[in-house]
């Protein structure tokens, strides 16, 4: 009977992730549908609709507006997907159905639960990002040969946001209005003020600060560098990557601590 304990203690997170992914599979139809339709809608509406106005004027960065927008929308989809897939299971696990407390009564540790939820969210994010990228490709929004690297760049943003959200969602004990407030004070401002729709430098300097702390901006800069002829120095490149990577590390570290505190007290 005791043979499996060692196995569990090493792979606990994967068991949790597996359970989450099996749960997602029930909604795979809707998830895949949204993954295809969502980007297509944004590309037609903003890319072509607003793009027609921008391109008729002076354009931006010397490329079509669609090309300019594509890496930002890709990273934004990764962020949205990973946040959703982190927040709901955490609320469910700690409060609605208290499933985490059930998991905790097995040999799986609190840390493994937090990492497992994160891994499952990343799985969903990979799927969304790949599909989004394919849609972008067919819209002709990707110009350079390194454009496929925009996928890992977007994933990095998704992972950074997912890790931070995991810690935040776990920290919240009273979820009244949490979703509304996260949407209004985090997701929408980030979407709108991260250089998504126009270069960050176009904003007054005090607003550019939002970009600097936003995973979306860092990933968008990387994505633009990778999908078209957008210049970034080696230093800029490494700063963007370092910021995103440190968000992942700090987010996961804090999540593990908070999960531990809430589940093992």
């Amino acid at each position, binding site marked *: 009977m005791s043979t499996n304990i060692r196995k569990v203690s090493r792979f606990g997170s994967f068991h949790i992730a597996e359970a989450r992914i099996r749960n997602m599979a029930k909604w795979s139809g809707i998830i895949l549908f949204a993954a295809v339709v969502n980007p297509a809608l944004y590309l037609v509406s903003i890319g072509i*609709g607003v793009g027609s*106005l*921008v391109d008729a004027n002076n354009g931006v960065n010397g490329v079509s507006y669609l090309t300019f927008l594509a890496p930002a929308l890709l990273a934004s989809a990764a962020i949205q997907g990973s946040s959703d897939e982190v927040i709901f299971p955490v609320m469910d696990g700690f409060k609605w159905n208290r499933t985490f407390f059930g998991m905790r009564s097995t040999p799986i540790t609190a840390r493994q639960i937090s990492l497992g939820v994160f891994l499952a969210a990343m799985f969903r994010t990979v799927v969304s990002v790949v599909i989004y990228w394919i849609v972008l490709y067919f819209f002709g929004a990707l110009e350079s040969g390194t454009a496929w690297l925009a996928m890992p760049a977007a994933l990095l943003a998704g992972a950074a946001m997912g890790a931070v959200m995991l810690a935040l969602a776990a920290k919240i004990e009273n979820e*009244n*209005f949490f979703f509304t407030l996260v949407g*209004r004070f985090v997701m929408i401002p980030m979407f*709108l003020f991260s250089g998504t729709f126009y270069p960050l430098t176009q904003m007054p300097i005090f607003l550019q600060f939002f970009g600097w702390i936003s995973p979306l901006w860092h990933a968008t800069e990387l994505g633009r560098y990778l999908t078209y002829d957008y210049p970034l120095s080696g230093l800029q490149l490494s700063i963007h990557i370092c910021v995103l990577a440190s968000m992942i590390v700090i987010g996961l570290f804090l999540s593990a601590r908070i999960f531990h505190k809430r589940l093992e007290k």
Partner: protein
Amino acid sequence: MTSNAVALSERRLGKFGDKYFAGRPQQVLLRNWLSFKSSAWIAVVSGFLEPVLYLLSFGYGIGELVGNISTPGGDISYAAYIAPGLLATSAMNGAMLDSTWNVFFKLNESRLYKAMLATSLGPLDVALGEIAWALMRGGLYATAFTIIIAGLGLVTSWWAILAIPAAIIVAFGFASFGMAITSFMKSHHQMNFFEIFLLPMFLFSGAFYPLTVFPGWAQAIIKALPLRQAIELVTRAMNGEFGINILVNFTYFLVMICVGLFFTTKRLNALFMK
């Protein structure tokens, strides 16, 4: 021990809809006010932020890329161009949030309506009270937004004040319609229907660009959608364009309001008189 409550309820006997309506929707409003005062205010107050953020980001950021937009009334800035559409969209979003998710919750999770209808209130009191609350909220948002765009110098005439009643009519239409559809919903998953419908409508109703970028057949479909009607109603009201066109927009919402209210009352009655 004939109580006060009995005398009060008997006063309405023989009057309009005495089986469904106690003439007290204001008590439902009062309940929402009490809840707002203690906790819900942050969610309500922050709701007005969204269109303002869009206005600042799109209006000024994309505006710089786009330049001025030529309209029948002359060239205007991009921010001024999108302001009415954002107002109409936020009126829609606010009303939909109040009348769909919130109503779904009170109907199925907290059983609040069940408690209300165990008293001498009727379903029409509940429906009217909830919709009135959504409208007050919508009216507040519209007023704040109008003041902000006026402060930013984006309005050209006093007609802009009409944006407020126009936004309230829009909110009324969406609230009563949304509530009617919600009363048919059985699970959370079905509630996602609203998002599947609202997002494309938001993206394609031409809040951010002229509809002429689309082929004729697509324009015709979009023009039939409620959000496009809402944007036209608000834009025309703010520009003081009073003709047959605005009358069509207005009638569209009048129909939405009446059909929505009719089905909401009917359904609430059926739900609670099982």
